[in-house]
């Protein structure tokens, strides 16, 4: 690619580009941002992300930041969280939000979809055990509702409860009285969000130009 020559001094971009699918321009923009966030260090810490001013009013900030330090999101074989991430990991996490390519086969589309859903699933599954327990999910919902909008805590709670009932009834359907619902597995999660246009809903456009300086 001719673009490689246009950014001299970054041969590693080519590897990253292969791995994440970002273009060189995008990588360079993100790299700049990474440096900015980490104050020119090689690694990024949680505090660096929490310090972003725009993020401060996001109701699910904690979960999102956590997702960046969740090993499952960049090295599928490992579990647990890490303290700091390098640019490569940062980029891999970001790549979950890359828009799908224009022409894709059904299988590719399905795998993109699964990939994105896996990220979402990991975000909800805070204790890394492969199921989102209802407590975990309920917590997310409650957080989300009570911190955003004018809903009172009570109402948020009850909406969370109602949502849980839906989760249970969709993922299991009919249950015997003595059965009991352990939590949402990944399969359930796929089923739950089957009607969603995840490929497009969980995508943002990564620009080729740096817009951070436009503040």
């Amino acid at each position, binding site marked *: 690619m001719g673009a490689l020559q246009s950014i001299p001094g970054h041969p590693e971009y080519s590897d990253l580009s292969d791995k994440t699918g970002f273009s060189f321009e995008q990588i360079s923009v993100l790299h700049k941002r990474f440096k900015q966030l980490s104050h020119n260090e090689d690694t990024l810490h949680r505090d660096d992300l929490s310090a972003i001013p725009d993020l401060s009013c996001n109701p699910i900030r904690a979960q999102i930041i956590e997702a960046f330090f969740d090993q499952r999101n960049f090295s599928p074989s490992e579990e647990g969280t890490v303290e700091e991430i390098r640019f490569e990991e940062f980029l891999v996490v970001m790549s979950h939000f890359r828009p799908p390519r224009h022409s894709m086969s059904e299988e590719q589309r399905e795998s993109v979809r699964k990939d994105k859903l896996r990220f979402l699933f990991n975000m909800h599954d805070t204790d890394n055990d492969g199921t989102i327990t209802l407590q975990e999910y309920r917590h997310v919902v409650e957080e989300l509702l009570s911190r955003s909008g004018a809903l009172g805590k009570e109402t948020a709670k009850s909406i969370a409860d109602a949502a849980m009932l839906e989760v249970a009834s969709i993922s299991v359907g009919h249950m015997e009285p003595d059965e009991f619902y352990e939590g949402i597995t990944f399969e359930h999660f796929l089923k739950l969000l089957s009607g969603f246009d995840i490929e497009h809903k969980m995508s*943002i456009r990564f620009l080729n130009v740096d817009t951070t300086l436009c503040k």
Partner: protein
Amino acid sequence: MLRFEHGKTWLLWTLICLILVFGIEAKSKSDHSHNGHHQNASSITGIPIVTFKWHHVEMPYTVALWILVAGLGKLVIEANHHVTNVIPESALLICFGFILGGIIWGADKVQTFSLTPTVFFFYLLPQIILDAGYFMPNKLFFSNLGGILIHAIIGTCWNAATVGLSLWGCHVGGAMGDIDIGLLQYLLYGSLLSAVDPVAVIAVFEQVHVNEVLFIMVFGESLLNDGVTVVLFNVFDAFVSLGGAEIDAAEIIKGIISFFVVAFGGALVGVVFGLLLSLLTRCTKNIQIIEPGFVFVLGYLSYLTAEMLSLSAILSITFCGVCCQKYINANMDEKSVTTVRYAMKVFANGSETMIFVFLGISAIDKTIWVWNTGFILLTLLFVFVYRCIGVFFLTWIQNKFRLVPLDFTDRLIMSYGGLRGAVAYGLAVLLDENKIKERPLMIGTTLIVVYFTVILQGITMKPLVTWLKVKRATSSDLMLIGKVQNKVFDHLLVAIEDISGQKGHNYMRDKWNNFESKWLSWILMKPSARKKHDHVFDVFHQLNLRDALDYVAEGECKGSLEFIRNETAYIDFRKKFGDDFSDISMPDITIDMGDTTIANPYTRRDTVPSISLEMHEQTMNGLRESEDMNTHHLLQQHLYKGRKQHRHRYSRSHFDVNQDENEVQEIFQRTMRNRLESFKSGKMGVTPPKTITKHSKKDTQQKVKKEMRWNRPTLYSDLPYFEFSEESSASGYTGSIPRVSYTAGVGIENPAFMPDLDPMAPVQIPPWLAEGETDSATVAPSQRAQAGLPWTPSNLRRLAPLRISTRSSDSFVLADTLPSSSRERDELPPPPSPPPSPPHS
């Protein structure tokens, strides 16, 4: 006798009237009947009892008749769905118009009725556009606004220019024979044909359910291109009047500036009126019955204001609807909102019907038909071809920037969806006969283009969409998780954009949302509405309403809801079966189970925490059969005798169902007593008080009721402090009127309101939380309670918080929910810990 005489007089008068009418021809119509009337009165002594005054009512009568006829036409057309599945309704209505037009032509030999621009633009169009704006899916609309604007502005200009120029070229080339149309007139003609028509697009696309992005692209374009059309039309109209020589660069620049003024000015007027409307609905609480009217009146005013200022009226009313929808829906009473929705649909649908019928009728008119094969065919061809070229080119550019590109089939449908309609026809009729010699030809060709697009393209749209496998709209069930997950996506995307340091769509939207909820909502929304206003909450509310309706429907099959709600029956039940099992003493049974298990020990099984309410229906159905016999007996004894008497009354400003306070009192009283009794039996392990026999109860009830009525003014506020003293209940309410003690401070101690004692409370516990309890027996609902689940209002889980949120002053509702909520607070395990803090490696 009398009737006969009346008839005779009527006949007589009619005859006289008719004679007079036909006799005096020179006079004008109004004079006619007036004079006739007077002459009659003077020539024949006595007061005329009935007179026939057709001219007096002619105008409104004709209008009403036409509306009726159009409505009936629609009725006939819609009666057969096999036909409307193939041919869109709009096409059928036009054909219906042909038939009517033919009849009129046959009768009068001249077309008496046709769609005039005044009627169309002032009386038929506004409500359709208002409806479109009011029901506009705002998020979708604004997230695609860029693309829509490109098509609306550039696409429309492209259409106008190319169609005009190509026709002119062909004219010069000699394809049309001898007609007198200059270049400017061709451009004027092109500009009136350029606009995609919102009415036609709605009518056709409504039945084709294409995916929402595609729909909003076509539909949004059709709404917004009006500004462009109006400007182009006015500019070229002015140019035609000026004549070719007078046009210089200054005029052209003025034209371009006027475009921005007209389009943005129109939108601005609309926004202003939308905000005014929102503000107004903030304070219409006391005139609820007419508040829906404001929506229509102000909407119409925004249209007229823009028209007055020669701005784009369609843009104005569109934006009025778009801006106010959120706030008026939140501010107005739910009933008013429903009224607005329905009335909006009635008006819009009615006008649409009228428009299509009249488009058909207008065709049957000899004066507009000047046939010119070359002109007509070339117009059709160019309109279609340039639309396709324009759309494909513009989407090709857009796709370079779009996150979700429009694929080939989408683009094809967009091109094919370029339907022309009544707006084009209305503009064509507006052409000035003196300036444009070939006006009839233009009107006729415009009509042909309209018929071609609406009928032919309308009919073929559906097969084409099916054949191309265009992504259809997915009609998904209303789900809370869906909405919640959508919210998660929103915040997630914003966060990612924040982290990656980009200022993308999501960032902008988030900023706008913040601004909106901080300032706009604060100004435009009632404080009470602001609290409740949340999309997720709306869904939640709707689901609750559905649940409640289901509950009513289900409950009614089984008997009076009053009975189901009223636990009096259980008391008797207990007596009946409790006696049989009286040897089984359960002194140490847990509080929660005490009451209910004794009631039907024969069905007792292990109490199992449940996850889903639905699954209990099965168990319960079985249970129910065995209970049926007893229930019947109980029902006969204790069924609440409805005392609901509708007081028929008429009021112009109120529209409420009579809520008899006696009834409310009685329900309350019964509930309270049962609550208390079950409390006592549960809490103290006491055997329930002697069941009250029917007789004594009725007596006391009436007495109590009486007393309650004396105390009415204080009742509502003091209800929670009611205490049915033990003595009175122990004595079965016989003897003296039970004391109603208004002890101050008693309220919170009142046992009936102690959280743990509510017999319904166990039901309230979400099963997934209950499962975490170590001792399930204390929390799990007893079998009776479980079996009763779907039959008790309080177990409709979603319902509970609603009542909490409304903070109803209705005390027994409070009593119902408070214990459960406080219980949840008290007993449930603390909410799951927040995401684990980063383990320090």
